[in-house]
């Protein structure tokens, strides 16, 4: 430890100030380890692959799925089609991200529609039925008159 660090520790603004003053004390230096070694208790050379459920969307240019991936919320509806289009565009093109963001908004709209559809569809059907019946009645009346 050099004298500057020692001086700093005398006026320590927090307990332990300067304790990691030397670069060797810092766990992430150098950023890339010079002697590669497995992290944690990894006991494989190549990780085993998860089964492919068939709907995972992978980025353009990736030959096969990564060994492990998340399985929350499969793509669906119109937003799912938009996402499929987006993942065909490499991610260094802005359009890849813009199509995904647009798909996110469509996804929300589809979700809202799904929530209100069970009420809207019967109401609309009833409306059409009674509307047509009423119109037909007046049409018959007009014919009879």
């Amino acid at each position: 430890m050099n004298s500057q660090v020692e001086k700093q520790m005398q006026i320590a603004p927090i307990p332990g100030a300067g304790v990691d003053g030397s670069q060797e004390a810092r766990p992430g230096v150098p950023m890339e380890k010079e002697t590669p070694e497995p992290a944690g208790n990894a006991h494989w050379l190549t990780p085993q692959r998860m089964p492919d459920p068939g709907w995972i969307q992978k980025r353009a240019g990736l030959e096969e799925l990564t060994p492990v991936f998340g399985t929350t919320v499969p793509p669906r509806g119109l937003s799912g089609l938009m996402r499929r289009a987006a993942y065909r565009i490499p991610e260094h093109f802005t359009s890849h991200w813009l199509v995904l963001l647009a798909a996110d908004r469509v996804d929300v709209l589809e979700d809202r529609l799904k929530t209100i559809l069970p009420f809207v569809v019967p109401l609309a059907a009833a409306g059409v039925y009674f509307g047509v019946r009423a119109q037909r009645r007046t049409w018959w009346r007009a014919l009879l008159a």
Partner: protein
Amino acid sequence: MLALTYRGPNRIRVEKKPAPKLEHPNDVILRVTRTAICGSDLHLLHGLIPDTRVGCVFGHEFAGVVEEVGPGVVSLTKGDRVVVPFNISCGTCFFCQRGLTGNCENTNPSANVASGVYGYSHTTGGYDGGQAEYVRVPFADVGPMKIPDDMTDEQVLFLSDILPTGYQAAEMGEIKPGETVVVFGCGPVGLFAQRSAWLMGAGRVIAVDPVAYRLDFARAYNNVETVGFEDATGGDVVSLLMKMTDGRGADVCIDAVGCEAEGSVAQSFLGVKAKLMAGSATAINWSIAACRKAGNVVLIGVYGPPFNAVDIGSAMNKGLTLRMNQANCKRYMPKLLDHIREGRIDAEGIITHRVPLEHAADAYELFEKKKDNCIKCVLVPPMAA
């Protein structure tokens, strides 16, 4: 199980969802005991991160008890208490072998920008997060760290993200003893970056934030000098910082704010309101401007893809070194656990609110609107209460 799910921008709700299952031999299922809301969760909440799907579960900072163990797991058994890094890492790819677990190439099929991350959209692999009663933890032999028996979940919870993120920021700044460090942001990550700067022997640490109570907290918690937007004439924070540093600028500037930074009307309008770029680049631009020539600028705030109006020309002409990355948490956990144990970092000291998971939506509002002097909010699932 109960889980906090996304319903659209600014709409989240706690609802019942099927519990996660083992999907790979090296998975475990964790029963969550503590989980935190992160500043970067707000970018998700605001719809700024692409491919955030309705129904996904947020949360990348959590600790819990191992409930179910996959047949290939050797280092954990049922009942173990663990804290889990937010990065999902395979342990043996090119990057993991070099200590860069935050850059793992085996866990995110969707984008080449990051490893898999819990509860952070399909852009980081489409994993459900930990703001739930249970969560699936892949590569359980790589990421999770057992919590020592004499320590509580809350003492070590922030090893999952914000503490390694703040420490790595200070480390990437290559702070030399006696140097002046400016940290933009007094949120949880900014607070830990400030504290880490002291540990690395900084001579001066200056914290910047627009919110008065957060500056008060930073002064009390970290003994730093503070600069609020109101302290600067006309809100010109950079000029004030230059004046404070002999007109030369700080040796190291750290952007611990990210894409929703305040302070520039144009940036906020274009990036946050009109969404014509990936958020506001104010904090990174101020970092570039307030750094001395040939100094180090560190970027750890979250910015979404694809582009921002960043003053790269000034960075070049000033000869700055720009360093940035997601935190490689795994590498920092033992060292930082030691700092917590020795009282050099009181990690749980930043928790201002504990809220039942059932009321997670209220907790988000509290945190987002900075109500009730909130710094960090921890969610407690019903079974852990």
